[in-house]
């Protein structure tokens, strides 16, 4: 009798790819939150900090096995929901496969 696979191994088998998505404000779009973070860091004594921009990080597990198709699919997700392209840019990394 085969020993049962640990949960993690089973998962890796069915979900081979992971997408890592960064969503950031476009250049020229004011980022009051980034500015406030910069001021707070200065207040804590961290010197030499230039502009601070705040963004979002999203991680997705995907059943898709082909990295190229996975990227295309994540591109569509970014355009349709994950980023507001009026004000935000996005970048995608596909890991695994």
């Amino acid at each position, binding site marked *: 009798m085969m020993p049962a696979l640990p949960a993690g191994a089973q998962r890796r088998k069915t979900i081979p790819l992971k997408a890592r998505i960064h969503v950031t404000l476009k250049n020229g779009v*004011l980022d*009051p939150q980034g500015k406030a973070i910069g001021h707070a860091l200065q207040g804590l004594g961290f010197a030499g900090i230039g502009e601070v921009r705040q963004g979002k990080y999203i991680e997705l597990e995907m059943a898709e096995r082909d990295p190229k198709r996975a990227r295309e699919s994540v591109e569509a997700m970014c355009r349709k*929901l994950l980023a507001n392209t009026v004000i935000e840019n996005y970048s995608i990394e596909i890991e695994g496969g």
Partner: protein
Amino acid sequence: MNAAVIVFPGSNCDRDVEVALAHSMGRAPLRVWHRDSDFPQVDLIVLPGGFSYGDYLRSGAMAARSPVMREVIARANRGVPVLGICNGFQVLTETGLLPGALMRNAKLKFICRDVYLKVETSNSAFTGGYAEGAVVRFPVAHADGNYYADAETLKRLEDEGRIAFRYCDPRGRVTAEANVNGSLGNIAGILNEKRNVLGLMPHPERLADAELGGTDGRAMFDHFVRVLH
């Protein structure tokens, strides 16, 4: 006249706008749940304020992709008037029915108080009840009301007379001090190209009854009854 108020999980001004509409229309508007992909034909669709889907991802982002919005977008494109108040305005920009985006307030605070607005155009079903240049007092209650659009879009809005309301002082002067949230051009509300979609951050429904301290919002709802059949 009949109207529909779209209700998302997290909407919290749906009742207020229903009361304001019912007062003017003499009948209750329909309530339409976000999962409904179809609803009866109406003369006006309202997207109320609140925190639809908990403001997850971005204010209005989830609601803009809900089943009911597919139908709202199709009807707006056919010319049905759509009014988005506060979160409703955020939903409208997220769908692309209105240009630009509503970002975090410049001072990062949730702002809840009455503001003065200058009516910039009377040329719409939403603003026809006001004289151009009139100063009205509506409450605001939002954290993400800082209107942003690129320079080209702003110019188009200006040139086409699609800025409906601007934040101003009590005397109608559009000043930096009167700009509660950092919006470009003090913009508080805009129209789409066909002028059948209005989004605004302030709440006309919250000052539409003397019992609540003011009636400046009433003219918007009363005017609907005159022009929408």
